[in-house]
């Protein structure tokens, strides 16, 4: 994955910001989140046109050839506007997994269509328990001549119900492998799951002798690498979301009058706002640092990603939760956007590992760094 110049990155981030400000406003989010597909096809096409969908895809496969820095920056805008789209599933997780697997034939065949948005792909990574380690995989692959057959269950598959391509992580005779599965093929049964975050789509997928096509070589490492890229993306989304929520909450505290004064003049509110500023700025620092370290292939990239994963997850939830309290009654209503952010924050905090999972792995990195 390459990296744009700082100037190109800012220009790109700005074009994404303007597109989302225009087409992913609160009314758009509310409309889209109630549709079965959970995304707006026109906006998806527009995102593909400006290069956001194929952001990390190599130019030889029709992408922008950008890296973690650009991805993190774009995701800050995505989080700020609660964009409803399969960007994380298709443009990050699936594209990232294909690129780390490095299967030339599969990449040439699949990545161009992922990059231009015409193919929505996702990765089926975990089973019904929803962990993010090899032992949590609950699909088995068995050889059937030159082909593969998949059996078992994948769950919490992001945008599984709208995907045209499934990259299924399964336990095979030679270890964990990734298998390309056509969701429309025999032996694949997809059940949409009702999600607390209405801007997200999740599915449970059962495989009964479904035909799979092996991609790349076996091993967990490519899956972990794709997960790490997705974690950096998610950290960016969380930081961007937290900043936006704090921004509108502080704005409200300046204009809402009670007892003859703006509520933001009361220390009870002001002190919460100051604490949340520390949370959201720390999340921003952590997300950007993780992107920088991952882009540089730094030895401590893993620790930086684990830190960003738990710090940004906790910060986004905390900011959203306290924002509702600071608003008071108005934010207890469905029509106020605060709960949409809290729902998204709670979903983001579970995807690809909850904060305690990342804290544990962060400590393991600390131990490893010093014998």
């Amino acid at each position, binding site marked *: 994955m390459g990296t744009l110049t700082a100037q190109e990155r800012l220009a790109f981030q700005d074009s994404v910001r303007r597109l989302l400000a225009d087409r992913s406003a609160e009314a758009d989010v509310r409309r889209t989140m109630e549709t079965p597909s959970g995304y707006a096809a026109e906006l998806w096409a527009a995102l593909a046109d400006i290069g956001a969908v194929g952001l990390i895809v190599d130019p030889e496969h029709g992408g922008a050839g950008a890296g973690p820095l650009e991805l993190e920056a774009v995701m800050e805008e995505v989080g700020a506007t609660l964009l409803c789209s399969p960007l994380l599933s298709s443009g990050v997780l699936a594209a990232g997994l294909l690129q780390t697997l490095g299967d030339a034939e599969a990449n040439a065949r699949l990545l161009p269509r992922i990059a231009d948005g015409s193919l929505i792909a996702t990765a089926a990574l975990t089973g019904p328990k929803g962990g993010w380690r090899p032992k949590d995989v609950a699909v088995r692959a068995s050889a059937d001549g030159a082909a593969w057959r998949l059996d078992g269950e994948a769950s919490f598959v992001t945008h599984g119900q709208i995907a045209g391509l499934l990259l299924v992580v399964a336990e095979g005779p030679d270890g964990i492998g990734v298998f390309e599965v056509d969701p429309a093929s025999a032996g694949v049964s997809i059940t949409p799951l009702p999600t607390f975050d209405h801007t997200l789509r999740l599915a449970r997928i059962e495989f009964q002798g479904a035909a799979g096509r092996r991609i790349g070589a076996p091993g967990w490492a490519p899956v972990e690498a794709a997960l790490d890229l997705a974690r950096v993306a998610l950290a960016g989304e969380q930081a961007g979301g937290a900043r936006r929520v704090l921004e509108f909450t*502080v704005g409200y*505290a*300046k204009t809402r009058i009670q007892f003859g*004064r*703006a509520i*933001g*003049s*009361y*220390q009870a*509110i*002001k*002190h919460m*706002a*100051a*604490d949340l*500023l*520390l949370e959201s*700025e*720390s999340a*921003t*620092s*952590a997300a*950007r*640092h993780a992107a920088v370290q991952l882009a540089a292939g730094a030895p401590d990239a893993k620790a930086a990603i684990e*830190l960003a994963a*738990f*710090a940004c997850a906790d910060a986004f939830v905390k900011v959203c939760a306290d924002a509702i309290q600071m608003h008071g009654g108005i934010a207890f209503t469905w029509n106020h956007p605060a709960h949409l952010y809290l729902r998204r924050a709670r979903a983001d905090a579970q995807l690809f590992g909850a904060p*305690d999972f990342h*804290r*544990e792995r*962060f*400590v393991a990195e*600390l*131990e490893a*760094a*010093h*014998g």
Partner: protein
Amino acid sequence: MADDAALPVTDESLRQEVRAWLAANWPGELHSEADRQGWMAKVVEARWAVPRWPTEWLGRDLSDAQGRIVEREFAAVGAPGTGQDRTNLWANTLLARGTHALKEKLIAPLLRGEVGMCLLYSEPGAGSDLAGIRTRADRKGDHFVVNGQKVWTSYAASADYGMLIARTDWDVPKHRGISFFFLPMKQPGVEVRPLRQITGESQFNEVFITDAICPAENLLGELGEGWGVLQTALAYERSVMGEGARGPRSGVPEGEGEPLVALAREAGVLSDPLIRQEIAKVVGLKRLNALNTARAKADLKQGTSSALMSLGKLAMSRILHEEARVRTLILGAGSLLEGPDFPRAEDANFLTLNAYFTSIGGGTDQIQRNIIGERVLGLPKEPEVDRDIPFREVRTS
């Protein structure tokens, strides 16, 4: 030297000049107090102590970046004495606001480190509300007579002068009746008593001032403008203080790597999942603060002011309290003990108490949150009932 300073100084010529001077003068180390004094005198005389200052006051009129070059060269050989234009609170305040006579008298000795100084700001009745001070300075001919009580004064016993704020006008609102002085400390009207802290240490003193004399030339800024002078001084103080706080004091080494990991390993609880979660939280907070600081510096370099600068102290308070809490968690009942035979307990307990040094000192966390809320987030100020009334009518505890 004056001729040299008049020439345009390039970064390279400056670097060469500092190097040459250090090569000719720096003895490699200073063995005694006399050595140190001799060295400081040399640095001041050669105009390296305050290179960014005007030539009129022992400086060289260098840019900030060039001042850094000088500092780097001194640091490279381990020589002290330069960079005081950034770090010498006393001399900077005096240069900015002092009378010509006081500058003539004290600037050079201050830069040589020959003058002991202390701060006479806080009072028992004026902590967070510093503008509520009640120490008074009354003009009598060519001097002021000072009466009152100050607190939280470090180094008061050895100080020659104290930077003092005192009330000189009781008929105007509180911020407008304050003046700023260099009060001579070695006189009968100034009594210093050590204050014992919750840690058992005595870093601070109370200072009782009874009919002490302060020459009129020791007034900094105009009469009644002391609050503004104080802001100048506080800005210098914060820029020097911003960088952190004390760690454990037992001095017993804790092993390699992250201290909390080493401590938990030593205590045999590193495999406890709960302890591991708590360690991750604290180390995470520390790393986040370092990342915020790095981002603030990068923002500053690009010329954009940063909200992050003001968050560091609040973050540090939380880190210190949390680290102490987790150390206690790791030690369990071991934290019941103290003394030299139990250095880990000593450290955990000391840090628990000393964390308040940061969360109260230099502006409490609560005042800090007000500042962040108002100056960074733009939230309205709380109404101040004493703001526009004569100070003598202000209610006190």
